[in-house]
């Protein structure tokens, strides 16, 4: 091939010409095998890091979920116990209910609020609200739980204020922050702004011409939304809802700080395993973790599929 000319002993001119010839094929297609190997070698540090701290923990959890934690034999016993004990099933039920309801509440109100932001004409106000949303979407975990305790806890600022203004004690009429309902209220705090952040780009994809065309053809505002805007937005709406679901399904810190483990959700059950609680052994903990990953992977893959469809559908410029 061309390269061989450059390798043998040759005059100075030949070497220079050879180097010229060599330069292109080496970069583009010459000795592809070595070139590709060197390319992959550059990834080794990153891949090794991911292997040690990302992949192998997952591997050991999956392996452990099929292993008896005392004898080390391969077994389905962990899954059997996970699915037969009421406490575990109840935890999954609570977790899914909590994530789904906070995702739906966040999605509906977040979408309506995002539409409000989208229709704003003042640029600075819009930017301000987007910034405010990204701050509040990131305000989660322990501080958020304590902010809500300070606001709506038994002696919280708003609880006391409502008692003083309206002479109604929230806790007498059935409200309780430290229950599942209260947790939905707290989770919505980071879900709603996240929905606003995710939906604004999607809403920006709605072109004014579509509305004008619909109006020209005699569509009312309602018909435009039902027949044009919502079908276009629907994939992004569903995808965003799945994102919110995944966002709250793995949440641990907020629930823990609010109720100190009193609410029976899957992440808290798993934390008992790590903390060495005797009621739950490692095998069961692994099975619970795999169960969680399965639920989350279902949500994430649905999200990916729908996002792909949305980008085909919307035909954004």
């Amino acid at each position, binding site marked *: 091939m061309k390269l061989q000319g450059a390798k043998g002993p040759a005059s100075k001119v030949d070497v220079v010409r050879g180097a010229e010839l060599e330069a292109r094929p080496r970069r583009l297609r010459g000795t592809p095998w070595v070139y590709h190997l060197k390319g992959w070698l*550059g*990834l080794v540090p*990153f891949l090794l890091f991911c*292997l*040690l*701290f*990302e992949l*192998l923990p*997952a591997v*050991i*959890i999956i*392996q*452990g979920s099929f292993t008896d934690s005392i004898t080390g034999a391969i077994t389905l016993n962990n899954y059997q116990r996970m699915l037969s004990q009421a406490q575990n099933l109840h935890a999954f039920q609570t977790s899914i209910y909590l994530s789904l309801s906070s995702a739906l509440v966040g999605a509906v109100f977040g979408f*309506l*609020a995002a*539409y*409000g*932001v989208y229709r704003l004409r003042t640029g600075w106000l819009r*930017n301000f609200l*987007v*910034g*405010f949303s*990204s*701050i*509040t*979407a*990131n*305000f989660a*975990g*322990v*501080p958020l739980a*304590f*902010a809500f*305790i300070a*606001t709506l*806890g038994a002696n919280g*600022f708003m609880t006391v204020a409502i008692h003083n203004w309206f002479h109604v004690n929230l806790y007498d009429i059935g409200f309780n922050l430290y229950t599942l309902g209260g947790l939905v209220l707290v989770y919505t705090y*980071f879900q709603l702004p996240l929905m*606003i952040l*995710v939906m*604004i780009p999607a809403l*920006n994809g709605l072109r004014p011409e579509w*509305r004008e065309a619909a*109006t020209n053809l005699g569509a*009312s505002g309602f018909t435009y939304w039902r027949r044009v805007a919502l079908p276009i937005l629907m994939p992004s709406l569903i995808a965003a809802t799945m994102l919110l679901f*995944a966002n*709250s399904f*793995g949440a*641990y810190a*907020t629930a823990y700080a609010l109720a100190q483990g009193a609410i029976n959700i899957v*992440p808290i059950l*798993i*934390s008992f*395993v*790590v903390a060495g609680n005797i009621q739950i052994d490692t095998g069961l*903990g*692994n099975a619970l*973790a795999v169960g969680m*990953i399965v639920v989350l992977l279902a949500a*994430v893959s649905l999200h990916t599929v729908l996002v792909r469809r949305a980008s085909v559908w919307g035909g954004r410029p």
Partner: protein
Amino acid sequence: MSAAQAKPRPVRRSFGFNKIFLILAIIYLLVPLVATLFFGLAGSGGIDFSTFQQIIGDPNFRQTLILSLELAFSTTILAIVLVTPTAYWVHLRVPKARPLMDFLTLMPFAVPAIIMSLGLVELYGTNDTLTSVLSFGLVPVLSYDPFNIIDTPQLLVCAYVILSLPFVYRPIDNSLRAINTTTLTEAAYSLGSGWWRTFLTVVLPNIWPGIISAALLTFSTVMGEFTLASLFGIFTFPIYLDEIGQENAREAASLAILSFIFTLICVLAIIFLVRRSAGRIRDDSELEIVATK
């Protein structure tokens, strides 16, 4: 505006309708912040800052804050140093590895911190043949003295790097796509620059906004991360906050406000430093999803 003039009623009504929900949402988001601020400041009649003084005087406060800052700095630096050259290398030399990179950097979204901590504790706390072989013998090395990393801040930093991959890789990768990296690199090569020199003096200055955004998000995440630190038993700032909260709601409220101000500073820094220089707003907004809840 012309639409509003031509057909005033339906447009204006829907406008008001949506404004109501926007205002309701803003109220919902503001009330806990304002109430927490008042709750934290309200002393025995009137506003007083004694709670803040009390907090600042607490040695645990300073100690945990310093530890969290150290963790945050090390995580940020390690994440950037690990991811940036890799992302550039993938972009330039192994585009085929992109699906793998997407998988690896999105996986922390699907695997919550609580599962990660369970996996890490098991991986480095027990003896297992399969993982020892799969890690080329590195796991046993890291599981025993002198390199035992179980329940150490070092392991915490490594876990945080993984946790922050989704929002470190994406902005950097997006920036690399936006600046026409291949052309820039070929230009630098043709002028005789080597790989590292090209990377440091040509590519890096051009993707600076993405890196700053990634760094600030990582920093803010680590400062607030509770799950892993609590399960590894490392006394960081969020753990301290949780401990205080069990005893004294007023101090906890003040600390929550401090945390909020910290998040505020990080996000504002991203908005002003990064968005201004990048000059685009829409594409970046979805990147500001921080994983730890």
